[in-house]
């Protein structure tokens, strides 16, 4: 077990190293960078003083150095202007666009993103699992067809459109302010009970909107998985033992049908961050998605780099978690290899 974990952690580190190189060089691929573009712009407007400041920043962050050196400094394995100070040392860099350290720019957005998407994940599972079980055991019943129909609606409706409609009505009926994750009055306030309440009220619409399509897809997949398992012999055995139908179903076929979803957790985590950009834009949610989009557009390299690396770490960690969970839940994986 410990050897396995050590091996996994080592390959994770190597994977992250390769990803970091890819991320950095791809961000650097378009000609120029945030500052040179800005300098060109400022020069064109004749503001030499600002341009001088920008050139100072270029020196400060070593943007005039070769790309590989910039990469190594960013990583923290090469002495930059401030000595060894990069990702490895916990210095995430400077966002030129916001003129603030990346840590400050991303700070709140990161955990709000996690909150929104965690709410979505919980919503999706709470809604879709019971419906999927129902439509699997009552296959081809009216209820099954209805769930299927609503599911297809969910898959086919454009998210942002649904978002706009729900925003409008929640404002009209419940007086929830439009956009954002709390009322504008709390925007720069410290956290208080009122702010939390406002946050919860504002969470409803994004959760519904982002979750709707996911729910539909999950119902379809779960139903198909369960139907496969319901035909298996061990389920007949369970019934032949005299188990009540629902208990037999939950103990045996349902548990078997969970496997693919656990394997999916690895994909779920990065999705939490980058999955809902469009909806976040429409709802003007202060999440990471829109930040990343902006950073990529303006070549704000340290900000974009950090967000991408964060997603990569989540992916790798998610994969590890789902593998460990699978091994914990499925003895065939834990003890397998000997069998057959």
């Amino acid at each position, binding site marked *: *077990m410990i050897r*396995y974990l050590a091996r996994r952690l080592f390959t994770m580190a190597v994977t992250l190293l390769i990803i970091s190189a890819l991320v950095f060089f791809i961000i650097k691929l378009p000609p120029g960078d945030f500052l040179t573009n800005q300098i060109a712009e400022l020069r064109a407007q004749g503001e030499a003083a600002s341009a001088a400041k920008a050139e100072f920043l270029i020196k400060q962050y070593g943007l005039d150095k070769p790309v590989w050196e910039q990469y190594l400094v960013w990583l923290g394995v090469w002495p930059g202007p401030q000595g060894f100070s990069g990702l490895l040392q916990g210095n995430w860099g400077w966002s030129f666009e916001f003129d603030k350290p990346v840590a400050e720019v991303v700070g709140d957005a990161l955990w709000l993103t996690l909150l929104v998407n965690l709410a979505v994940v919980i919503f999706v599972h709470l809604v879709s699992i019971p419906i999927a079980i129902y439509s699997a055991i009552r296959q081809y019943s009216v209820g099954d067809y209805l769930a299927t129909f609503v599911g297809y609606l969910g898959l086919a409706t454009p998210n942002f459109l649904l978002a706009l409609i729900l925003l409008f009505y929640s404002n009209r009926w419940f007086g929830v302010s439009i956009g954002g994750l709390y009322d504008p009055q709390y925007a720069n306030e410290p956290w208080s009970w009122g702010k939390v309440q406002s946050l919860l009220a504002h969470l409803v619409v994004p959760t519904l909107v982002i979750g709707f399509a996911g729910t539909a897809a999950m119902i379809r997949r779960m139903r198909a998985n369960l139907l496969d398992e319901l035909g298996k012999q061990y389920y007949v055995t369970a019934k032949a*033992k*005299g*188990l009540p139908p629902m208990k037999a179903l939950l103990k045996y076929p349902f*548990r078997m049908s969970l496997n693919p979803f656990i394997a999916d957790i690895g994909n779920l985590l990065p999705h939490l961050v980058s999955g809902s950009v469009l909806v976040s834009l429409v709802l003007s949610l202060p999440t990471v998605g829109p930040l990343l989009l902006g950073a990529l557009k303006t070549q704000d390299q340290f900000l974009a780099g950090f967000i991408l690396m964060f997603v990569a770490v989540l992916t790798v960690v998610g994969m590890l978690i789902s593998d460990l969970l699978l091994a914990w839940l499925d003895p065939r994986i834990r003890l*397998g*290899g000997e069998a057959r």
Partner: protein
Amino acid sequence: MDVPLLSVRDLTIDFVADAGSFRAVDGISFDIPRARTVALVGESGSGKSVTAQAILRILPKVARITGGTLLFQDPTSRQPPVDIARLDPDGKAMRALRGGRIAMIFQEPMTSLSPLHTVGDQVTEALILHREVSAAEAKERAVEVFARVGFPDPRRALVTYPFELSGGLRQRAMIAMALITQPALLIADEPTTALDVTTQAQILDLIRELQAETHMSVLLITHDLGVVANMADEVVVMYRGRIMEAGSREDIFRRPQHPYLRALLRAVPRFDMKPGERLTPIREVKSDILASRLQRAKPAEANGPVLVAENLCKTYTLRSGWFSGKMRTIHAVNGVSLSLARGGTLGLVGESGCGKTTVSKMIMRALTPDSGRVLYDDGSGPRDVHQLEGEALKAYRRAVQFVFQDPFSSLNPRMTVYEILTEPLRIHRIGTPDERFERAKQLLDMVGLDRRSLRRYPHSFSGGQRQRLGIARALALEPRVLLCDEPVSALDVSVQAQVLNLLKDLQAALGLSYLFVSHNLAVVDYIADTIAVMSRGYIVEEAPKATLFRNPIHPYTQALLAAVPDPDIDRPLDFAKLKTDRFSDPALWPEPFRLRAGETGAMMEIEPGHKVRLTSVTLKEAA
């Protein structure tokens, strides 16, 4: 006379589908007396399993009991009998019976147990459901039952998962699960069909012993008349949802009345068949082309064997678990030498996992042996198969074809019969489309299928017909050698006879050589000239058919022969002899056959053509 435990009267079961309804069971009546065994015999599709499912009320959704009664008289209660057919299938009364008073074991012990739960969990669950016991008491009871059904370490069995057990132990776990509640009736649906013969004998013995101890009744569902002859008190023969004949075992085997039953009895290969005697399948395959070829056929000139395997070895490395880096080496095949005569049949017999399929794959060059070689002689001298390249390899591929075990998964369901039969020709670029079409029709003729089937898809054929399609496909390239891997073990007895006869006729007409891999000695006896017995990767004995059956020397061969249930009630199985597991472990074979770990021994010829593997030390002493 006693009231029977279960009395089935005029039971009718319909399957309702979109295309209309289909009567699976049509007004059958029989009794299951107390403490007796009733065997329900029939081919697949005869309605025997459906009857069992009806007794437990676990029929598939589309099936309905449309008539008749199932009166169950619980011997432990004074209540009047209950009519199971009238109970709500998911109701409390039915659930108390199901698993509590009537228990069932199934054919496939691997899929019948959940792989995610321990054996202990699944066995105690049944007891906790039906009795007022705590989890700890249930565990204690489970350990007792595990010990009774023959688990070597009953306490460990509690925390073992099904996939860690061998097929035989899995079936024992199933039996433990069924018996822990001490049911009045045990329904066993093909309980040993998926097991090796030696294991089958042990499981059957166990069921008999348990029945004697607990006085339960057994409803045994099987297609194997050999099993019936050894187990049943009463026999009910079903065909297409009706009872053809019912009676005591004596009546059924000594005085069969119904033509169907007589035909069924004639279709089973037996050990006492005379040389040249043919099985009589219930439906004979007719083929004009084959008949005319048979008349013109001349025996193949015997100049040396067509295939020779020399000292083949193959080891596999297994990682024993996900988290541990431990490696285990398995010697799947250990110095196997075989020789296949031109126009002859070599039978390769052994239990599952003994390496027989690995051998056939190495011969086909689907696997590379670690050492040793395979020589093929097309008439121009022997050549090493694993050195062949280019044209020579292609020629070898044409000359050696494979017939698979499972006729359902070995044909692509998306291809028509025409595409399936001509695919080999297309791959090898033989003939024009018109010629291929002619060839496909000819092939169908040869295996006795209608020429008009070319446009149909595999799913519209029965198991036996599909296996004939598989044979036709193997014949498309006019091979010299067919490697048949358990070609009839997935088929019903009646169909099995038909396919075996077809293989025999094809061999005579086309001069083919067969390597016939099987675990069924009776089948091998019927089709092979020479038989090689394999155990744990070794060939332990090899002899011409007659010699092997007259004078089996090796303890493993003897056990294998003793374990085959004969459909003859005058020759019952010697259960006492088969009790131990000792015959499949080379280290436990008696001297001079014992092979300790790492020892390979050597083959010694004891009479012409009859070779046995002995310990090397013994050989040196002899020399």
